[in-house]
């Protein structure tokens, strides 16, 4: 007969989560002050990815920007990835981790967008010169030092996102800068590279990708980690996005621009949050990540206070049969029932740390469950603990495990499960992550979630994964070529901000105007004799409004707006008509402007024609205002109201009012 053991005193996970959250001084972002970021030493930078608007891909002649649904494919190819040495003779950490996961990767190929190059059955064709030129223009605009010779480099990716196992990439410039509102942010480099596959699914040991996006030209702008608050970081991201768009040679829309956000706190490490597709997510993500690191540093402090020599730390694993042990937890019973191996682990000195706050709604156990999923390929849920803040093991079960593992209250217990063949990797993964807790923040890349928290994605790759591309020759960039390119680059974004101020364009339109690259349009309108302010408001308010109301036509381009104002000027029609015409022009960009006028019910009238009914209207107003004696002002306003619509476009409204006023006064 088994003696039912009694549980030692254990922390209440939920309470402990809240207490540790408070202990490290976590504040929500809406309450965070600059001093909070100074306190934790917030530091961050960006890697901004931007697709270029070329017709073809970077190293083959497949079309760029054509996309397929997941099931629209003609063939499948399978690959496995194996780490190779970097140029400097080292294996990369990520590479080895990915190799450990032993993924089988399937690519779905569609003939329309994929040839033998994408699937690595033929070497690269010479680099797409159109893409290279666009990227160089953006490099010049970013004030980078342009290289003398472009060397294509292979950057290893063993996750399978590129079938070769590496991305072909090359640096075009180093050490540039951008000017945000209160400071300059240095740029480390700009590179041109091929985009990766889009993931369809990743379950267990099988990952499926599609290759439509693979090989599309992309640039990556990397900043120094000089942003000291989440807001500065967002501003820098916006600036770079506007700069890229100001050339008119980049793609827009879903996934065309993605940010990797690098964050660290004082004593932490550079963590890369990969593939943030909306700039508005950046502040929350970076805020939470900095505090996650701050929390991990606190865990480290506690651990070191309990155990001075981390090298002596080790875990004990026991494979268990929950039913036989009398465990009641339904998940454990079910997992064992379906044939999974269930393992109980004793984590000495981790008592109270498994439920330690790491991110809003998450505790240290998340660090373990994420790694079990990614490295050992065990789908979630894959772990639990008496300290789980969502579904903890209860007292009885805990007591059984404590006695089994001989745990005291300073120790933590976790239980994980998975297919038999994945258990050795799972054990290594748990041991490794716990050992890292003594060091602080492990180097890794993380995947962003919309709520601002992040998931472990993979170990952060180092420079060790770079290798010269032996399939391509270096490309020289002669001085006269670079000089010719620098003559054609658009105006600086910082300069654009100044310009908008000078034109008195309201600040609420600035982001929109830059995002849509409308400053060149404003310039054209100014050249037609309009004021910058009018043009700015017309585009920043009216066009933005129309875009939100009217379905877009693929043929619409902003030059059509310039044409519209040219038409009005040429026909001596007043510019106020543009406001009414815009929704029609936006929806039917190929309609001629005369027809647009007809469709909005516009009729041409001379000033005399327009003013002819004034006397009649004055009399009529007297008739309808029996109670209140009309004053000249009320009369003028009423008449104005009656004639306003017909006058629109024929004469300016101020001219109309002047004429009416004169008429009424003379009456």
């Amino acid at each position, binding site marked *: 007969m088994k003696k039912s053991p009694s549980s030692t005193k254990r922390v209440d996970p939920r309470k402990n989560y809240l207490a540790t959250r408070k202990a490290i001084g976590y504040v929500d972002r809406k309450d965070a002050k600059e001093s909070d970021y100074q306190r934790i030493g917030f530091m961050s930078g960006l890697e901004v990815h931007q697709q270029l608007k070329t017709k073809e891909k970077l190293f083959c002649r497949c079309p760029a920007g054509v996309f397929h649904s997941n099931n629209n*494919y*003609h*063939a*499948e*190819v*399978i*690959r*496995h*990835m*194996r*780490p*190779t*040495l970097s*140029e*400097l*003779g080292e*294996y990369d950490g990520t*590479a080895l981790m990915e190799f450990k996961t032993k993924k089988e990767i399937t690519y779905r190929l569609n003939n329309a967008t994929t040839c*033998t190059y994408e*699937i*690595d*059955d*033929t*070497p690269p064709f010479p680099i797409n010169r159109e893409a290279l030129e666009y990227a160089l223009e953006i490099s010049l605009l970013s004030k980078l*030092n*342009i*290289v*003398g*010779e*472009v*060397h294509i*480099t*292979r950057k*290893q990716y*063993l996750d399978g996102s590129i*079938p*070769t*196992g*590496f991305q072909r990439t*090359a*640096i075009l410039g*180093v*050490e540039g800068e951008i000017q945000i509102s209160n400071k300059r942010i240095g740029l*480390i*480099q700009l590179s041109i590279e091929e985009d990766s596959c889009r993931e369809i699914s990743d379950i267990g040991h099988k990952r499926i990708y599609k290759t439509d996006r693979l090989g599309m030209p992309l640039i990556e702008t*990397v900043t120094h980690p000089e942003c000291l608050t989440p807001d500065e970081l967002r501003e820098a991201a916006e600036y770079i996005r506007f700069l890229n768009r100001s050339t008119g040679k980049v793609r827009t829309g879903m996934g065309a621009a993605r940010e990797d956000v690098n964050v660290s706190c004082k004593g932490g490490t550079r963590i890369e949050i990969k593939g943030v597709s909306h700039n508005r997510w950046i502040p929350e993500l970076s805020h939470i990540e900095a505090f996650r690191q701050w929390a991990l540093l606190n865990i480290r402090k506690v651990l070191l206070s309990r155990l001075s020599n981390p090298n002596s730390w080790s875990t004990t694993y026991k494979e268990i049969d929950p039913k036989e042990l009398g465990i009641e937890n339904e998940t454990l019973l079910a997992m064992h029932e379906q044939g999974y191996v269930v393992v109980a682990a004793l984590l000495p000195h981790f008592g109270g740390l498994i439920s330690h706050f790491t991110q809003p709604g998450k505790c240290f156990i998340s660090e373990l469950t994420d790694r079990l999923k990614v490295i050992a390929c065990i789908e979630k849920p894959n772990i639990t603990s008496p300290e789980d803040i969502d579904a903890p093991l209860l007292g009885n079960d805990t007591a059984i495990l404590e006695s089994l593992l001989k745990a005291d209250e300073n120790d933590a217990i976790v239980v994980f499960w998975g297919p038999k063949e994945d258990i050795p990797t799972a054990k290594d993964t748990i041991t490794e992550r716990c050992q890292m807790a003594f060091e602080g923040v492990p180097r890794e890349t993380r995947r962003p979630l919309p709520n601002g928290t992040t998931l472990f994605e993979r170990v952060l790759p*180092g*420079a*060790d*994964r*770079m*290798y*010269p591309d*032996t399939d391509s*020759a*270096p490309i*020289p*960039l002669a*001085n006269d070529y*670079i000089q010719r390119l620098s003559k054609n680059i658009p105006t600086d974004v910082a300069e654009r901000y100044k310009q908008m101020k000078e034109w008195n364009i309201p600040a609420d339109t600035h982001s929109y105007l830059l995002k849509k690259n409308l400053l060149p349009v404003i310039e054209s309108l100014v050249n037609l004799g309009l004021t910058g302010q009018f043009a700015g408001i017309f585009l920043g308010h009216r066009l933005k409004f129309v875009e939100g109301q009217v379905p877009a036509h693929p043929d619409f381009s902003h030059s059509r707006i310039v044409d519209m104002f040219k038409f009005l000027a040429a026909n001596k029609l007043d510019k106020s008509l543009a406001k009414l015409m815009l929704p029609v022009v936006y929806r039917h960009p190929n309609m001629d402007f005369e027809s647009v006028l007809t469709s909005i019910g516009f009729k041409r009238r001379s000033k005399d024609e327009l003013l002819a009914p004034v006397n009649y209207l004055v009399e009529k107003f007297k008739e309808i205002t029996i109670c209140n004696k009309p004053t000249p002002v009320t009369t003028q306003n009423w008449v104005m109201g009656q004639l306003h619509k017909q006058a629109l476009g024929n004469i300016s409204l101020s001219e109309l009012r002047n004429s009416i006023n004169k008429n009424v006064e003379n009456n």
Partner: protein
Amino acid sequence: MEDIFQGYKGKALEVLKKFNVRVWGKTIIDTTRGEFRGTVLPRAENDDDQHIVIKVDTGYNVGIDIVTINSMKEVGYSKATYKIPEKEFPYKEGQPFVKLLGTGGTIASRLDYRTGAVIPAFSPGELYGAVPELADICNLSTEKLFAVFSENMEPEQYKALAIAIGKEIENGIDGIIIGHGTDTLSHTAAALTFMVQNPPVPIVLVGSQRSSDRPSSDAALNLIHAAYTAGHSDIAEVMVCMFGPTSDEYGFLHRGTRVRKMHSSYRSTFRTIGNTPLATVSRINGVKPIIENYNHRRKDRKVNILPYFEEKVTIVYYYPNMQPDIIDSLVDNGYKGIIIAGTGLGHINKPLYPAIRRATEKGVHIYMSVQTLWGYAHMYVYDTGRDLMAAGIIPAENMLPETAYIKLGWALGQTTDREEVKRLMLTPINDEITKKEPYNGYLVYQGGVPEVEEFIKKVRK
């Protein structure tokens, strides 16, 4: 003395010397395009003398145009040693002994700055470092016979290989792997089939289509398959072991006489022509024969090594309007054997006939193979064919042109007697001529056929 300016020449070398900066020196370069910092790398021999290559901190390489350089300063030095981690290949009791003979193919490789290309790694320790799975398959030892590119594998090497194989068999090896570049892999395979007859163990030629410096290389899987075949398969023949489909799934074992490289870059480039491959091989299912009739593994050490080759043999690829002087000049230059790759069933045009006749009279041995690759030379079907045979051309049945070339060289290396050469040529040693072509020996499907498209979608390539 160590070359401190590896690969630099001309003007770029002058600049390095002027500013006293070495290869592997950490340098700050002031240029008219701004400042650059990094480690100076060696330069590939064929690149120009207008640029200096540096590796910047982020691991990328960039070139600096020397005309933009104002000054350079060396601020440190750190030389990289590029080395595949060498781990001792573990010996496991009970596993077969396999010998890997190296010729210069790329199984595992490292960077060669001189050419900018990759050079192969080879020792068992290096291979174990790169492909640790090998240790679970066999006890591997290696010997580097030569280090040549595939296109430089020639009769001298064939003979040396055959003799080396004979020695290994004599010494009791359980299987042999030959690492080889892929371009002329099938020529070597044919040569070894003729030179190493009736072997008691598998002899497996293997290469890789994608260099092993890339994570998706086929090298490791091919090597694993080859090691498995050499160590464990029952098929004691000369075989080529390369990818079956382009996917990382299984390999094919091809008979050395019927195999051909059919695509310039695909992984699944090797195909058996005019028959099915001999077998499939994978780690999960082992070696599964497709052709049931093969030479079985034996315990004895008997093998017939025939290392002979006459080098004055050639292939003539016929085209319309070929002039007789092509044949004449071969004869006048002392060629002793000619393989013609003729059109259709084995044809060439009339104006060549006198030249053929003259060649035969001068003792040149001429055999007819077909450009179509698939199918037999049937020279009886038309009068023209009969005329050609009368002129001295002997149809080589369905021998592949390259195989026929190798075989004629091998035969003429032993005798010049017309009848004896003919007997050697037309007596198949291992299916270089087959009695019949099976219905599935010719399957060249065409994309666009709806049924084929359906098949491609369902079955992984």
